């Protein structure tokens, strides 16, 4: 006689692929690790403290507002904290970074209903909040100090004015029409937000995510292609006023935004056609803001603006269902 086991009743299918959402989040965090290490190498321990402050703010807010403790373990809060920190100037006071991630998670995610429901990229929303609230602190860039020279006392409570400040490559471009050596841009030995300095590591991280199918390859492809084409056109019309296309690609937060912010699945279209439109829109906005707007950098606003259009884009780019419109019989 077969002993009756206590049988489970679960919904089919009874097979699953292996990836889970927390693992997908972890994947993005893995891709960020080299960038984080490089930023600590370039900007010193103060960068590490800034990262910790930012992640602490994000996780704490998630914990305070989340309806169930399980959402704390999906990794999304840590990721938002890390991403926000990487867009900040390394000298930002720690409490500002902390506040930034409280806003990123609180206003950027939890008020929308938690993970998966937010319209805007939380990290960028946090950054937009900081930029609006503390414009001076958010636009003071230091030259890289190296890991041991970092001014540990500096970043804790107030903006340091002793540190050697310098203009970012994009500032130089906007104000003085002066370009920076591309190799420096590529390797990252330049002033700037601490996560956006090494193009090389960002691209490697992005390629890893594309290979793992964690991000949609269409979005980076669309943005970068648009930026290159658009800035080439501008460069051809007036090469004294506009930077060359490679500078446009490698400078500022573009690559970090392209691979890690714009591709946030929650705030980008899930339809393939929509992903193209979304990416092209970001590319155009970035170049417009950088070259014709008052700001030196436009990646953040470009992505946030396009985030707002995602529901609309999705509505008009639904995939053609099998056996509908033209896909039907063609005897």
């Amino acid at each position, binding site marked *: *006689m*077969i*002993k*009756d*086991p*206590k*049988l*489970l*009743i*679960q*919904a*089919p*299918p*009874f*097979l*699953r*692929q292996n*990836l*889970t*959402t*927390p*693992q*997908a989040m972890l994947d993005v965090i893995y891709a960020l690790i080299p960038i984080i290490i490089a930023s600590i190498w370039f900007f010193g321990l103060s960068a590490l403290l800034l990262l910790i402050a930012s992640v602490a703010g994000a996780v704490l807010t998630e914990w305070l507002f989340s309806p169930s403790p*399980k*959402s704390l373990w*999906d990794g999304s809060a840590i990721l938002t904290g890390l991403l926000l920190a990487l867009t900040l100037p390394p000298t930002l006071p720690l409490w500002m970074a902390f506040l930034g991630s409280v806003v990123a998670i609180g206003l950027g995610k939890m008020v929308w209903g*938690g*993970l*998966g*429901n937010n319209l805007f990229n939380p990290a960028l929303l946090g950054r937009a909040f900081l930029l609006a609230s503390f414009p001076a602190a958010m636009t003071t860039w230091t030259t890289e100090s190296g890991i041991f020279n970092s001014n540990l006392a500096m970043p804790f409570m107030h903006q340091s004015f002793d540190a050697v400040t310098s203009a970012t490559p994009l500032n130089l471009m906007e104000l003085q029409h002066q370009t920076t050596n591309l190799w420096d841009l590529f390797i990252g030995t330049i002033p700037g937000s601490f996560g956006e300095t090494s193009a090389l590591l960002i691209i490697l991280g992005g390629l890893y995510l594309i290979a793992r*199918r964690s991000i*949609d390859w269409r979005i980076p492809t669309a943005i970068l292609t648009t930026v290159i084409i658009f800035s080439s056109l501008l460069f051809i019309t007036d090469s004294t006023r506009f930077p060359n296309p490679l500078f446009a690609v490698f400078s500022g937060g573009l690559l970090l935004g392209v691979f890690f912010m714009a591709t946030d*699945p*929650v705030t*980008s279209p*899930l*339809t*393939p056609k929509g992903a193209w439109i979304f990416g092209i829109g970001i590319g155009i906005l970035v170049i417009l803001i950088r070259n014709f707007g008052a700001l030196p950098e436009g990646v953040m606003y470009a992505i946030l603006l396009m985030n707002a259009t995602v529901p609309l884009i*999705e509505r008009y780019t*639904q*995939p*053609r*269902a*099998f*056996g*509908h419109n033209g*896909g*039907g*019989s*063609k*005897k």
Partner: protein
Amino acid sequence: MNPLPAFKRSFAHGVHPEGHDEQTAHQPIQRVPFVNQYILPLGQHLGVPARPIVKVGERVQRGQLIAEPGAYVSTTLHSPVTGWVRAIAPRRSPRGDLQTAIEIEADAYATQRLESKPTIDWASLSIDEFIKQIQNAGIVGMGGAAFPTHVKYDLPDGMRIQHLVINGAECEPYLTNDHRLMLERPEVVLQGTEIVRQKLGATLATIGVEMNKADAIAILKKHLKHYQHIQVLPLRVKYPQGAEKMLIKSIFGIEVPAGQLPRDVGVTVNNVSTIVAIADYFQTGMPLIERIVTVSGPGVEQPANLIVPLGTPVREVLRFCGGLKETTREVIMGGPMMGIPIASLDVPILKGSSGILAFTAAETSRPPEYPCIHCGRCLEACPHFLNPSRLSRLAKIGAYAEMAQYNALDCVECGACSFSCPSNIPIVQLIKMGKEEIRKVKVLNK
């Protein structure tokens, strides 16, 4: 309309679950001995339940008609054993509901030999007689849906079938019953195909087999020489290749328009097991009273491919396979993608039961459900190019009318979306629920 060249022969999207056929692919088909008790639910096919024509206490012979079609979209039921009708009463069905069933007690001293009937000369039958015979034999689609086959063959006036497609894809993991059938009875598969092809007037019949069954493809091809109008096509391995419309897309590159049937593009699709049941009926007079079932999964002591009389309780089938391991936590009837979990081992094998799978903790444990992060994997999985993410969200908030606008009714419930979801959202269940609500509204509006 011609089959596509091999490199084009596929359908878009779909998923690639592991095959898991190693436990049973090499197990020859065995016959399960007769047991004491058989339970035959009257509604084991799609459509109207059959109507019993026997009384409690009556003696029945193996193969004897015990229930006649309740309507046109319904079919017959025959006794799988010689014995006595013990009850016509509600019994638990594999789906968990109570269904009126005929319970038969086998006569332990009967020979259980099938009454030999003269073979039916199928060639001389008119198409209407042929369709009637299919219904008399109680034949349904044996891939799982159990749709009465005679209804499929009954075409509206003026419609012609150019092409018969035999589904040997067996895209569900674990299942090997069709695989073994093609290997062990290739001639019968081809004979059945030829019977149906001629009767439907199709110019060509194609047997589509996924490439992971290379031995089956080879053996069918070897027997092809007597059949000029049948071809065997290898198909790339992909789930859900065995869904009718996917199979037609793979073979011919044609999309059957939404809301229409394969016959609207001149194709009829039949499962290999169904075709063999038809061939057997015309050659031996045996109606559909048994089927091949794959018993597999890590929870089964001795996985096997078995000929099981319909109505045999799952418990008896498992007993023949050495029973369940202690670690078994879940028993599935059908394949792991579209099958149903059973709550009791006392439910019977039905015409549509292709497999019994037993899973242990490793296969049944699931991560918690996370919110949808719009990763888009379900869109890339859906063979009907739907937006399962959106459909499941709409289902959750009860926006059924909007679901219909997003073509929810096209969903074939293959489960590729749920399979691919990293957030473990029961997408296909939500869509199924929405479809039912949409249909309810449709009925009310009529």
